[in-house]
């Protein structure tokens, strides 16, 4: 396994960084936040349609560029650093991989090309749980009726609702199969926009009350199997971990800049060893988390079951914990201004806690890792 980035990969990352420096600065993010949250529509249009970021990891036969998870992760890292207010993660890391893994002809010939071309955004109504538990926890149900289906169920928190153009809903059929439904906005959907502490990523509640959908809304080929779900979720988890890494790096860098200028007792506070050592420890955590995320991401192409799943879970644990620690240190080291609205740490602080809970909090992932490496129940 080679973890070196290629020249092309570095170019993708660096160009994305320059683009977001210009188009998703702190000032741009604050326009969205001060308006109560949402999507930066102009930014999203450019990213999705002109820059083709959604196409990155979609196979070429489905209209994408056919690049790997590594390229997508690098983009997510840059997006995390800028807290970019757009549905790239939900579209490219949640919805597209699920369609790639489980989709039928319509998914592959119509929906994925539309995502790759930046024509639509999409999201998945997964419960907020560690990935091993996702399939079992699906409570939405579907039953065939006439030419279509009837859907029933509630999903409390769905990323990038109400904005998403397409909502993918895994729902259980009476025979136990989990089917995948693609709901577009022509359907009479009940979606409540949720007020969130983290205004950089919208969340919505989806209610399906005896919703009639046409047969073509079902877009899975043969149901969502456990291993397909795991792979699709792993993509989302690694994308999120990369985003958390990027956010951590950014908040560490802005903190270093601040303490390098702030003078007390006739010296910059960055010169105090108590502060240097705290920053250095964070740097160790960062190197550890980034290495694991890169390693797990590089291993994504030759996926090998339980061990790979454990590594993906581990990437989430480290990245989630890193980001939170980086931000709490940032607030502390900023002193009084650290808990003001005017300085940026609070934006990262809220993102850190909100993203911590998406697709399962660290404790759940730790349980999954322990199960994989020690065994569970009677095996122990």
């Amino acid at each position, binding site marked *: *396994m*080679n*973890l*070196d*980035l290629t020249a092309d990969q*570095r170019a993708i990352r660096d160009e994305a960084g320059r683009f977001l420096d210009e188009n998703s600065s702190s000032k741009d993010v604050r326009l969205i936040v001060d308006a109560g949250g949402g999507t930066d529509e102009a930014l999203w249009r450019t990213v999705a349609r002109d820059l083709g970021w959604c196409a990155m990891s979609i196979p070429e036969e489905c209209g994408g560029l056919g690049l790997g998870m590594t390229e997508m992760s690098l983009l997510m890292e840059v997006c995390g650093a800028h807290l970019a207010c757009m549905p790239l993660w939900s579209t490219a890391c949640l919805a597209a991989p699920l369609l790639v893994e489980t989709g039928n002809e319509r998914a592959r010939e119509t929906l994925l090309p539309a995502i790759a071309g930046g024509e639509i955004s999409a999201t998945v109504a997964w419960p907020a749980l560690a990935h091993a538990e996702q399939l079992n926890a699906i409570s939405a149900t579907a039953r065939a009726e006439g030419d279509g289906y009837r859907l029933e169920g509630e999903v409390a928190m769905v990323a990038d609702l109400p904005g998403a153009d397409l909502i993918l809903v895994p729902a259980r059929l009476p025979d136990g199969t989990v089917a995948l439904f693609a709901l577009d906005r022509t359907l009479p959907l009940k979606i409540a926009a949720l007020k969130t502490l983290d205004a950089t990523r919208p969340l919505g509640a989806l209610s399906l009350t005896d919703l009639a959908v046409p047969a073509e809304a079902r877009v899975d080929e043969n149901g969502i199997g456990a291993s397909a779900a795991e792979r699709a979720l792993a993509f989302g988890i690694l994308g999120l971990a990369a985003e958390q890494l990027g956010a951590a790096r950014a908040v560490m860098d802005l903190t*270093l800049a601040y303490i*390098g200028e702030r003078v007390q007792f006739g*010296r*910059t506070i*960055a*010169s105090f*060893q108590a502060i*240097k*050592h705290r*920053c*250095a*420890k964070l*740097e*160790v955590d*960062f*190197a*550890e*988390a*980034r*290495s*694991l995320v*890169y*390693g797990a991401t590089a291993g994504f192409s030759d996926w090998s079951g339980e061990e790979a799943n*454990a*590594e993906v879970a*581990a990437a989430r*644990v*480290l990245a989630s914990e890193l980001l939170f620690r980086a931000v709490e240190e940032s607030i502390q080291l900023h002193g009084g201004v650290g808990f003001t609205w005017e300085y940026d740490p609070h934006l990262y602080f809220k993102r850190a806690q909100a993203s911590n809970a998406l697709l399962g909090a660290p*404790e759940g992932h*730790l*349980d999954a*890792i*322990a199960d994989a*490496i*020690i*065994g569970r129940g009677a095996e*122990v």
Partner: protein
Amino acid sequence: MSEAEGIKALRTEAAQWLAEHLTGKYAPLRHRGGSGDGDAFPVLRKEWERELASGRWTCPGWPREYGGRGLSIAEQVAFQEEYGLAGGPGRMGHIGEGLVGPTLIAFGTDDQKSRFLPGILNGTEFWCQGYSEPSAGSDLGNIKTRARLDPATGDWLVTGQKVWTSLAHLSDWIFVLARCEEGSVGRNGLIFLLMKIDQPGVEIRPIRQIGGGAEFNEVFFADARADARDVVGQPGDGWRIAMALLGFERGISTLGQQMSFAQELDLIIEIAKENGAALRPAIRHRIARAWIGLRAMRYLAMRVLSTDPDGDVQREGLSYKYHWSNWHRDLGKLAMDVLGPEANIIADDWRRERLQQLFLFSRADTIYGGTNEIQLNILAEQGLGMPREPRGALK
């Protein structure tokens, strides 16, 4: 043959050779002689070095013209991993192979190369490192050992004391950093000397360690002699040579070390399953975290050893020592907590013994080779560009 195929072939060759040779009289050496266990089976482990040499497995990273195999870093990593997997014992020749050899290849005279490299390559001459002193630990520039030129012979006469010298009592040669310019301070005025240990004026006293063994020593010099031919670099230029030597330790051997860490973790899991500790949620999470840390360590090492020109990778490499040493120390505590009350009982049980040694000796990991505190200074100053620590005025 592609690079990947070449590595695969090398792995097969190494695994097969080790399976055939690390057996019979060498079988007791498996998994022995690692950190904290360095004085185990010294005579047999020296023989093992000659056995390795017979298979051309000593110094595989050295250039071919000096008798090595000229392996790339990726190939050296592969060999280290196979060596670790096979339970290859701690290398008595490590200091010679990994530190002295590359230093002489880079800075040595032809005469030095021809006199010293073959003994290292053949596994017949063993080296130890004379850097630390009682008042020069983390502050290595504070060296007080003196080297005085003997005008009659051109030799250097060395007086002073070194400490924490690993395996000095089992070595033939020591490289010594000493002060050769009267009145010089810090990094200036130092000399890098190669000295024979078995001579009048060199006395070795073992230091008994926390685990009961004694792989470290104090080394006393009283007008001990370094041959005029055995200065590396110029007198006064010792600091540069000394630092270059440390730079050759790029951490390739740590990939082998990680194999041994993985075996320790496996052992802990095995015992936790037997004694029921593996049913306790808090222990399960700690084991999961240990596994995570080891995985991250592996990927971090792979990135650091790569030739990636990315500046980020260089910076993140500074974290490596802090990460592995603290991880290992925590693993020692986890091992004891999994053993429970039995951790305190000494018994004729190799598994328990190994974990007890892990618990005790891993305390050294965060001290030698740059303490935690020094590592954090390096990270802050070199990695993050934060202000340097002020120097004190006390002598």
